[in-house]
């Protein structure tokens, strides 16, 4: 085995810049996915049959098909249908947001159901309207319960985000491949990419634990 990291050194900053791209990508996807997921979860627990049906079907489809397929569809279909070239980054963010919304809506739905039923009754007995009750009483409590699960989703997203390299977004993964191709040596840059992903995930896990402990303290 002959590993040669010396050749990799000049390209390290280039690959590391991908961390920023990946994080940006994941953060935007997560925020959008979270907002959309919240809306979907409200559809799921709501009384309007059509919305409930829509949200369930939506979740089922996004969970039942490969992520990479969804991404390629969005990347190629949108320009084809609308004539607008949205670019790899946007297509990736859109896919991840739509996809994680399906998972997040399930997490939030479970979180809402886990909130003591007495909370809803107390709010109702006080005449609090449904919307206010959801926004100010139920959701704040649900979000606290689901933080660990959300953190998990964040981590999964970070790892899975590597597939945007397929459509050419310049994330960690793609950069490692480019460096590999230009040096005719793939092992070293991929190893570096693996290390970077691992450190990112560990960092997020740690941050999640700290956040959880903080919240637990306020109990």
């Amino acid at each position, binding site marked *: 085995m002959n590993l040669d990291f010396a050749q990799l050194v000049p390209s390290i900053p280039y690959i590391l810049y991908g961390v920023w791209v990946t994080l940006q990508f994941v953060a935007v996807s997560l925020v959008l996915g979270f907002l959309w997921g919240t809306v979907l979860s409200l559809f799921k627990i709501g009384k309007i049959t059509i919305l409930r049906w829509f949200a369930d079907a939506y979740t089922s489809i996004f969970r039942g098909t490969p992520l990479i397929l969804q991404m390629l569809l969005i990347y190629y279909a949108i320009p084809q249908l609308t004539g607008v070239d949205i670019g790899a980054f946007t297509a990736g963010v859109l896919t991840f947001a739509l996809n994680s919304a399906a998972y997040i809506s399930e997490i939030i739905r479970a979180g809402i159901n886990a909130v003591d039923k007495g909370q809803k009754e107390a709010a109702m*007995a006080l005449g609090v309207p449904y919307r206010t009750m959801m926004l100010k009483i139920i959701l704040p409590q649900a979000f606290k319960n689901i933080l660990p699960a959300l953190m998990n989703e964040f981590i999964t997203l970070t790892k899975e985000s590597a597939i945007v390299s397929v459509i050419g977004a310049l994330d960690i993964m793609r950069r490692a491949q480019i460096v590999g191709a230009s040096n005719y040596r793939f092992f070293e840059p991929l190893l570096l990419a693996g290390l970077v992903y691992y450190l990112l995930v560990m960092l997020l896990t740690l941050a999640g634990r700290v956040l959880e402990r903080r919240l637990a303290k306020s109990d």
Partner: protein
Amino acid sequence: MIDVNSLKKRFGSNEVLKGITTKINKGEVIAVIGPSGSGKSTFLRCLNLLEKHDEGSIKIEGSDIRSMEVHLRKKVGMVFQHFNLFPHLTVLENVTFAPQQVLKVGKKEAEKDALELLSAVGLSDKADSYPSNLSGGQKQRVAIARALAMKPEVMLFDEPTSALDPEMVKEVLQVMKNLVKTGMTMVIVTHEMGFAKEVSDRVLFMDDGRLVEDQDPAIFFENPRTERAKAFLEKVL
């Protein structure tokens, strides 16, 4: 003020209220007692639409409660066995939440009212605490203050002391006694027979979804008319 007529409620095929008819007058204190599963909570919950009845009617001051959902909630306050305080809000925020959100009272005014109510239940010093830092008795007193903040005309209590350690029962009953003195109309589901006897104007004894006795407490506790009430009292006294 509240007129209940042939009230029936089913959960699936299980008929839980089998035709309840009674009247609650303004300023009256009603104790609702009866064995577990007899439908006491369901009856109470029907009074403020937490459960929708299937047959019969409930009228408050002449209007059917089903036509006045939000308005009804403003008139009728409820205190639960398990307090149901909002854990992510401070005691003060718990009390000011509904007046601000529902009655659109300004923050300053809502807080002033809330502090008065908290002082009336002996908890002025806990205004900034979170519910998790309170004892059960304190929580229930906050819950009473929270319901009173909506300035209701009727207060419903569903076993307000059943989840409390014995040493905390008294402080909550004391707060309720003070409330009786203000002339509040109250419907209280309770297993505290001494308390029921002392404060109530009427006892409703329920068994198996029916109102078996509607009686003056002195008479009910000394000399119940029905066998079922006798058997129940023998068990609990």
